[in-house]
């Protein structure tokens, strides 16, 4: 379990006051002492070790992409689908009986009555009906 520290770095605040590793073992303390001298005598591995003591992640690591959006969108779709189940329950237990005017038979007769009256004959319903062939226009 890492100790609680005051280290918090982000893209907009990349260099906090506290280093990432506050508690150093003997080897790391020796390295910090060596850092006080000339940096030309530090090997590449030592420089990397010093960087890792100071910072948690490099900018490349900090800015990496992730696949979090897949989990997020998957859960979004899941709950949207759950809403469909709620609507199913509503249809079974809440919806009233279908009015007689919405039954198929009534709608067919209503349609015939509108066509007899030639309702909206210019651009509307009756204009889409072929009166000679007695079918819908193609």
């Amino acid at each position, binding site marked *: 379990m890492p100790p609680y520290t005051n280290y918090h770095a982000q893209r907009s605040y990349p260099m906090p006051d506290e280093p990432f590793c506050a508690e150093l073992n003997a080897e790391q303390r020796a390295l910090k002492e060596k850092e006080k001298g000339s940096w030309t005598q530090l090997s590449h591995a030592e420089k990397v070790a010093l960087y890792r003591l100071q910072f948690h992640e490099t900018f*490349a*690591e900090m800015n*990496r*992409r*992730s*696949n*979090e*959006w*897949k*989990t997020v*969108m*998957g*859960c*979004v*779709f*899941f709950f*949207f*689908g*759950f809403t*469909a*189940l709620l*609507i*199913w329950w509503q*249809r*079974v237990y809440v919806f009233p009986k*279908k009015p007689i005017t*919405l039954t*198929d*038979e009534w*709608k*067919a*007769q*209503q*349609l*015939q*009555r509108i*066509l007899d009256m030639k309702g909206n004959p210019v651009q509307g*319903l009756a204009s*889409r009906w072929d009166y000679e062939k007695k079918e*819908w226009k193609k």
Partner: protein
Amino acid sequence: MFLLTRNALNRFKIRSIQQIRSRQSHENHSQDFHDKYGNTVLASGTAFCVIAWVFIATQIGIEWNLSPVGRVAPKEWNDE
């Protein structure tokens, strides 16, 4: 001037592609939850959503009252 900016932009593009390659090969060492299960969660969530909504739209008797044009055959109404 144009050649200068074109070369500068090309250098930027090349470097970022190398960075993408190294990032992809490095970050896969430790996979988080989204790397392991993200595709499954997304696919199953989408499938559940699509199936559920198609089902309630078509199968449970909701009246959408769509246009009769091309759909309903008229029937005699004043035959009494």
